[in-house]
């Protein structure tokens, strides 16, 4: 049960994200223990997992980064909306609108991709993008490993 201390840093973003994400997944599974059959249920579940991944990633990073702050704020807003009973049909606005920025300019495209990038200057944007990319890669790694372990 206890992770081997040799291979992990206890306070790295990756471990924090992994713990947070697994916890969120666990709670999601507890909430919906029944095996999903219909695609709608699975889709909703997928969205929830994605949201959980984003939230755990942002919370692992903390509030020192602008993009994590933006993600946390957005998730909070979405949660507030969900508490009111509104169900959002669309996916993440950030992602659905990702491809539109190409024609306008590269920086605009990047702004739309990086959460919270709309209000940054280019210098900050690049900084945040670098950090965001790092975090995304770790997120992808962790999630892939989780999928790997779960599926076997």
């Amino acid at each position, binding site marked *: *049960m*206890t*992770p*081997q201390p040799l*291979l*992990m840093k206890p306070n790295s973003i*990756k471990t924090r994200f*992994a*713990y947070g994400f*697994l916890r969120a*997944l*666990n709670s999601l*599974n*507890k909430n919906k*223990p029944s*095996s*999903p059959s219909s*695609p*709608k249920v*699975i*889709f909703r*579940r*997928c969205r*929830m*997992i*994605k949201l959980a*991944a*984003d939230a755990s990633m942002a919370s692992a990073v903390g509030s020192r980064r602008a993009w994590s702050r933006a993600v946390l704020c957005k998730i909070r807003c979405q949660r507030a909306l969900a508490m009111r009973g509104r169900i959002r*049909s*669309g*996916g993440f606005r950030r*992602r659905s*609108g*990702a*491809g539109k*920025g*190409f024609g306008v300019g*590269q920086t605009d495209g*990047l702004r739309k*991709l990086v959460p919270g990038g709309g209000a940054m200057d*280019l*210098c900050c944007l*690049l900084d945040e*993008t*670098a950090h*965001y990319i*790092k975090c*995304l890669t770790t*997120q992808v*790694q*962790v*999630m*892939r*490993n*989780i*999928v*790997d*372990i*779960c*599926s076997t």
Partner: protein
Amino acid sequence: MDMGGTDHFQQEKRNEDLRNYHSTNLSSDWPIGGSNLTNSSMGSIPTTNPMAVCKGDVMESPSCSSGPSFCPTTVWDHPTNTQNLGFSDINLQSSAGASNTLGFRKGPLSIERTLDMGWAPQNSTVKGGMFLPTGPGMIPQSLSQFPSDSGFIERAARFSCFGGGNFGDMMNPFSIPESMNPYARGASSVMQRMQEVFVGHGLKSVSSGQSQKNEVNMVEASKDVSMSVELGATEGSPLKNERKSESILRSHDEAKLGVGVSGNDSDEAEFSGGGGGGEEPSSSKAVGLKKRKRSSQDNETTKDNTEIQRKGDQTPTSTTNKPSGKHGKQGSQASDSPKEEYIHVRARRGQATNSHSLAERVRREKISERMKLLQDIVPGCSKVTGKAVMLDEIINYVQSLQRQVEFLSMKLATVNPRLDFNVEGLLAKDILQSRAGPSCTLGYSPDMTMPFPSLLPSQPGLTQTGLPGMSNSLDALQRSLNSQLAAMSGGYKEPTQVPNMWGEDELHNVVQMGFNSSAPLDSQDLTGSTPPEHMKVEL
């Protein structure tokens, strides 16, 4: 005493409401003075004192209206007042505890009251005319307040509390020149002491009427007088110092009074209120409401003051305390202020030295640094030259990563039921493997194979039907990373498409469309996450 206490509270409230201490004090002084005069004339001083107090309190409510009615009495008292002035002058000039005590002893309450009575009207009527020539004139005013009652005493305390600074304010309506102020202050401080002493006398005489306490009060009064003398000596200092010292002295007096009275809770409360006013001259409005806090504060202050008295160093400590704190704050602020960041930029030869161009250059340098950092992070970006292309690469990479997260979450959604069993165990394994796992994002194809067999039993038909479309998607997969992701998203739709709505033609279009089409599709592709991988594995 209780009456006095209640009246005092009411008066405090009134004062708080009106906030015009001058008007209230003067008006209140008049009625009291009138009552006192009548009392003195009657000769029944001790018995009528409480009555006079009550009257004064009652009269105080219509303060403005009552003022003029008493004016004639004040005029009538003028000769006595002048005499009183002379007496007060003597006291002040002598500034010895003996003289004050003598005054007290002679006519413990009546004489003082008469004096007060006479003065209050004079002040109101003359309005500074009397004050300007004679500083002692100020004293009778305060005295007039003193004899009135505990309520008046508190007022007097406030008066005095405010008085240090308020005297200046008081003086302003009276049009007294500033040069007079120090003298007036000294007088006011002395008067305050006197007032307090008188108050102590009045309270004790009324409450207990015991001679012993009076004697104690007398001793205290002498101390107070000495204190006041010291204050007068130190009055050359600015207003604030005077206020503080006065407040402290008041607290001293109050502490003494509290010691002397000690049995009367109401008196203590009143004194505490007065002490609060003394401590916080600016916020004297809320004195009545916040008596408890102030009482506690007053206790502390009184203790401190008693200690200070024993030491004999009253004024210097009082004056230095608050200023020292202010200085400390200022020093801290001063220390904080110099912390400012300076960016040293040097222009080379031929470069513009304009501040804007310098800032622009700094910004460009920063951006190039960040771009280099990003170049290291984003795979395949090191070869690219040109920022625009690099930005494109970065955008593509970020998009691909986001897609991957989406895709993995989808996979987790389908796989999840198994996750219930071993989440706890996963915590250990997962992190370890994630650390040891493939660092490159492209290596997901081996991972992808894993979920497939598990899903096959659940969706056998879907995968088989999806095969033809998958081949098309596979072509797209081989193009590039980004196209791979797009194809994956397109490939997912095949299984869903078979049961639901999507056609193969649309699939082709989707694959060819690439990212733009995949973005809207993301929300709709659900169950088929595994089939494309399966296809990939097979191919």
